[in-house]
């Protein structure tokens, strides 16, 4: 056999992989151990009536957010499946963008639009309150519905053309389409996407922290942060963190394979659906458009239209702003770069190790990880540079599952396509990377880098816990401005965050393209 090797030799050759795996594992476990080691200390007992209402609200808001997003997602997906119109692809890309929009930007848009004096809020009556459940639901629906649209639409469009032809022949009405075709098509995908969104809402931090408005609407994730930051009670925080870990981990365990499955690609319109001309379909689609306008287009327009140029000049002259840009850039580039290196090393072979470790990371809520790291570094009281380094490390870890999720299928496909040839040619690991994986994976690497960068610069949980008060990132600055209701200025910070993300995405993906073309010809 060409690559017949003794297992020990193989393990030795794979040492970088095991080294990185050990590193990731210890980064994951050390904070957990730090949490557990606190438990012996003195503290007040958990206050059960409060914890009960915390858990109740945590589950309740996640459940409502999930069901609402699913319902609206269904409405939108069916509309998109049966209508073709100019800008449909653009709309789909926009919804995808909303899914990765930094939560703080969403929070700002929701506040500006739906506060009682906002352009929509003023029509919602005297009893309307944004802070609390309403605000949390609005932001979660904005962020999570696009995922449902993506999954549902893919399902609807994978329907065999023959089904649609028959349905047209039989003249199915809207209800029959739903009962006989749509529901059976969607049903298999439902449990995993429902649970995934439920998990995302369960561990949502930024949204609840900025829109919760007090103990009435606090989740475990936020209570952990408050126990640490407001009450200086690490042990209380640890207990809550373990509770959250139990809650989130038991849920994630159930759907780990689904979490790591790549998202289905949206396709172009195919096959006419028969129910489109019916009144009920028109009514539903009108509702879908109204919701699209109200929730995904108008709030962003409110942000754009309230941007005031005179505020930009002093901001651009403020050294604190450029310091924030610099730290965000370092944080994003560092985390995305590090996570790609770690993932690539781990993806050696069939990439099962990368998958396994990603599962481990997904089980751990970000605040829990940050709390543990906080306890580890707290006695050392490191300086700003070291803290930024730690933040990069932590965020690299947190975004790793996304990188693995994007890179693993592409790499496996390459192995499948060229594996035999590479073996026949007797290529070693270096040659395989140099001539096959690296050039072919460049576009995927660019995309993964872009997404990881976006996620890392939007991080608030880890940054709030680990940053010193002197430290500044764009996300932190935006969070503070939101808090003190300097909304017009906050808009520019939100723009900065998005523009930085988009620019880096463009740059990296452009670089991947140019590099790929220059070095290896456009053939790939």
């Amino acid at each position, binding site marked *: 056999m060409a690559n017949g090797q003794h297992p020990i030799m193989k393990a030795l050759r794979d040492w970088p992989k095991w080294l990185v795996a050990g590193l990731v594992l210890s980064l994951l476990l050390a904070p957990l151990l730090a949490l557990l080691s606190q438990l012996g200390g003195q503290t007040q007992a958990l206050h059960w009536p*409060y914890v009960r209402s915390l858990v109740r609200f945590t589950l309740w808001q996640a459940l409502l957010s999930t069901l609402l997003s699913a319902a609206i997602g269904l409405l939108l997906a069916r509309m998109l499946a049966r209508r073709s119109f100019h800008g449909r692809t653009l709309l789909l890309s926009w919804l995808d963008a909303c899914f990765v929009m930094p939560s703080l930007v969403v929070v700002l848009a929701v506040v500006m639009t739906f506060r009682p004096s906002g352009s929509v809020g003023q029509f919602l009556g005297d009893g309307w309150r944004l802070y609390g459940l309403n605000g949390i639901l609005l932001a979660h629906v904005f962020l999570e519905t696009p995922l449902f649209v993506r999954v549902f639409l893919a399902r609807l469009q994978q329907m065999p053309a023959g089904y649609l032809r028959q349905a047209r022949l039989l003249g199915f009405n809207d209800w029959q389409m739903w009962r006989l075709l749509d529901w059976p098509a969607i049903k298999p995908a439902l449990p995993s996407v429902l649970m995934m969104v439920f998990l995302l809402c369960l561990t949502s931090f930024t949204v609840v922290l900025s829109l919760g408005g*007090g103990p009435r609407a606090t989740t475990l994730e936020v209570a952990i942060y408050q126990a640490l*930051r407001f009450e200086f009670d690490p042990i209380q925080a640890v207990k809550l963190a373990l509770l959250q870990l139990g809650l989130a981990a038991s849920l994630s365990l159930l759907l780990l394979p689904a979490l790591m499955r790549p998202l289905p690609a949206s396709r172009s319109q195919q096959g006419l659906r028969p129910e489109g001309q019916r009144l009920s379909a028109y009514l539903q689609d009108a509702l879908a458009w109204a919701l699209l306008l109200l929730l995904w287009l108008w709030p962003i327009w409110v942000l754009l239209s309230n941007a005031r140029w005179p505020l930009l000049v002093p901001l651009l002259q403020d050294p604190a702003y450029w310091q924030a840009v610099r730290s965000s850039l370092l944080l994003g580039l560092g985390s995305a770069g590090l996570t790609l290196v770690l993932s690539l090393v781990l993806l050696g072979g069939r990439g099962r190790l990368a998958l396994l470790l990603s599962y481990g990371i997904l089980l751990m809520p970000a605040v829990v990880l940050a709390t543990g790291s906080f306890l580890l570094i707290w006695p050392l009281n490191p300086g700003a540079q070291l803290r930024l380094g730690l933040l990069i490390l932590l965020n690299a870890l947190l975004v790793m599952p996304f990188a693995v999720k994007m890179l693993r299928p592409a790499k496996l496909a390459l192995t499948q396509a060229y594996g035999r040839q590479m073996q026949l040619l007797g290529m070693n690991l270096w040659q395989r990377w140099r001539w096959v994986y690296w050039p072919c994976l460049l576009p995927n690497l660019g995309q993964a880098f872009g997404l990881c960068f976006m996620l890392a610069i939007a991080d608030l949980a880890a940054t709030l816990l680990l940053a010193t*008060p002197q430290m500044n990132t764009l996300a932190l600055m935006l969070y503070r401005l939101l*808090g*003190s209701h300097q909304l017009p200025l906050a808009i520019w910070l939100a723009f900065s965050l998005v523009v930085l993300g988009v620019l880096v995405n463009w740059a990296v993906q452009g670089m991947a393209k140019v590099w790929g073309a220059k070095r290896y010809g456009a053939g790939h």
Partner: protein
Amino acid sequence: MSKTTFVKSSLTSAALLGGLALAQPELTVYTYSSFVSDYGPGAQLTELFEAQCDCKLNWVSLEDGVSVLNRLRLEGERTQADLVLGFDNNLLAEARATGLLRPHGLDLDALTVPGNWSAELDVVPFDYGYFAFIYDQERLSNPPSSMAELLASDLQVIYQDPRSSTPGLGLLLWMKSIYGDQAEQAWQQMAARTLTVSSSWWDGYALYTEAKEGDLVLSYSTSPAYHQVVEGTDQYQALHFAEGHFMQVELAAITTASKQPELAAQFLQMLISPEAQAVIPVTNWMLPVVAGAELPEAFDQLIQPEIVHQLDPELVQQNRAAWVREWLTASSR
């Protein structure tokens, strides 16, 4: 920029910074966000102090007064802070329990702030005031005249989190002083009146006055003077409550971690000087701690609480956690 130039420029700036640090001592002060905001006293006090100290004053802004103490506790002996500024009389026992306050050696006999502060050797009071709810006359025509009326009303109230903010803690103690064992029921009523609980005074006050949300906001009896003097309006007024008001004395102290206690003491001396005491009332909008400070006329029109509540700092220290739990439970139900 190429890598080498980047490295070079960082080295140069590090050298420059290092040079500056050698030439001028730097004094680090932890305080709450509004103190060093554009409207706060921070900038003027910096000017006053740097003119006399040949040093650089470095403010570190934390959310609110309780956060200042929390941060100090968190960092312990390794803290960067030479001074902490903005915790209050209610947190005095807890601040001392950290073992991180250092005697300042100043003579406080001349201070006119209520209480026997000259006996305290490790803290310096720099202003004081009474907690009160503020309302906007244009938005609310028939404001409540007591806490009981407020709780029975259908108004939307903004207040601060007692775990991070000294006004929030003030309200917690105020409610305790009025309702005693019945405080939990009172908090349940308050929960139904709550628009939002902000983590700092600044956030809550901005929500009320900038975003114009809610009917009442927890602040100080002196807050209307700000609107009168700076904005020329009497739109915002403090509510005079029949049950009385809770008093706050804001404090500053030198940490044991400070390597330049003399300089820090000089800062505290400046803080209670007539010049600084003339700045603080019209920037931090609290009452001065020395007699004879000249105040704008607006201060004459402020409400004068007849009943003033205060609690013993030791009592607060023993019960704060339990009372916070009581508040949490009652308002999360």
